[in-house]
């Protein structure tokens, strides 16, 4: 058998036959096999716990990104009220990128949640199989001759082994996926941090590389629309509704 099936079953069969070769006494092999299964089940549990931890980290990243979106929006409004359309545009471009990333992150988090449920269900299934193996090994010990027992052991142990490897692979996949997501979300966070307008005057009017890149990614249309809307909102008030700056008072002018 080629592919996935081939790789997996070869590994178990090699392990089981090594065990059977080493041991003259099938009941020893059976007990050892069971003990090994119980040990490996602990690894599986730990693996699932790691996936849960990674998911929680992603959820934290998601709420950080949400905060970024709010912050960049506020900054854009502040920039407009100071007459700095260039800065407002830069903030909105970053906001668009953060929003896009947030959406994809949230989708992936719900996918991961579904996977986590599946992993937990499969872990339960594996526990049942190990329990079955435990019962079966006592029957084999009691009822079969050494030669017959060896065949029965292989069958039963391979059944458990396959289930175990399958779950191991599923956990690995889920972990790989969260790593990729974490890296992407982290990159967007850094971008946001790099563009923090703590001091509006410091950023200057010139576009840096990040700005140019952002403008390309986010596509101008959405930013233009939002900018126009914000300007209309802020301009329509008679000054009383002007947003407060986070730090200090707005300078006169604009």
């Amino acid at each position, binding site marked *: *058998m*080629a592919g996935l*099936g081939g790789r997996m*079953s070869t590994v178990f069969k090699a392990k089981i036959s090594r065990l059977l070769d080493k041991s003259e006494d099938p009941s020893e092999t059976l007990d050892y096999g069971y003990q090994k299964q119980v040990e490996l089940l602990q690894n599986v549990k730990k693996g699932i716990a790691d996936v849960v931890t990674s998911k929680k980290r992603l959820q934290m990243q998601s709420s950080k990104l949400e905060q970024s979106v709010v912050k960049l929006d506020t900054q854009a409004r502040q920039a407009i009220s100071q007459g700095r359309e260039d800065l407002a545009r830069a903030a909105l471009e970053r906001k668009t990128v953060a929003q896009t990333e947030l959406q994809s992150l949230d989708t992936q988090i719900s996918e991961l949640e579904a996977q986590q449920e*599946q992993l937990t269900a499969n872990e339960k299934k594996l526990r*049942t*199989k190990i329990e079955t193996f435990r019962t079966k090994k006592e029957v084999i010990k009691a009822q079969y001759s050494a030669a017959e027992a060896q065949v029965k052991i292989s069958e039963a142990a391979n059944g458990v082994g396959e289930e175990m490897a399958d779950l191991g692979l*599923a956990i690995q996949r889920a972990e790989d996926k969260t790593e990729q997501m974490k890296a992407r979300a982290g990159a967007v966070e850094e971008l946001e941090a790099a563009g923090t307008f703590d001091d509006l005057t410091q950023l200057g009017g010139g576009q840096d590389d990040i700005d140019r890149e952002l403008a390309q990614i986010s596509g101008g249309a959405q930013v233009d629309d939002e900018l126009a809307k914000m300007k209309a909102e802020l301009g329509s008030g008679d000054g009383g509704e002007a947003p407060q700056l986070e730090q200090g008072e707005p300078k006169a002018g604009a």
Partner: protein
Amino acid sequence: MIVRIAGEGQFRLPDEDAERLNELDNRAVSAVEQDDEAGFRELWSQMLELVATDGHALEEDELEESTVILPPRDVTFAEAQGEFTGEGLIPD
């Protein structure tokens, strides 16, 4: 025959299905070889569908080895390029 879908579990299928599954498997290999992702997706969903239609899930306390192990449902095309090669998942 017993088919496992990676990450989902094992299903018992009538032996007659082996031929049909093998045929789909071979066609999936040639789709992958021709870099035809759409073609592969179509064949892959037919394989899954065959298991869903004809297969009965094994009981939790059955200890059986699978005749064939299919990759996870959400297998990427890049992953498929590693799995669906040569004689495919099912040797001819």
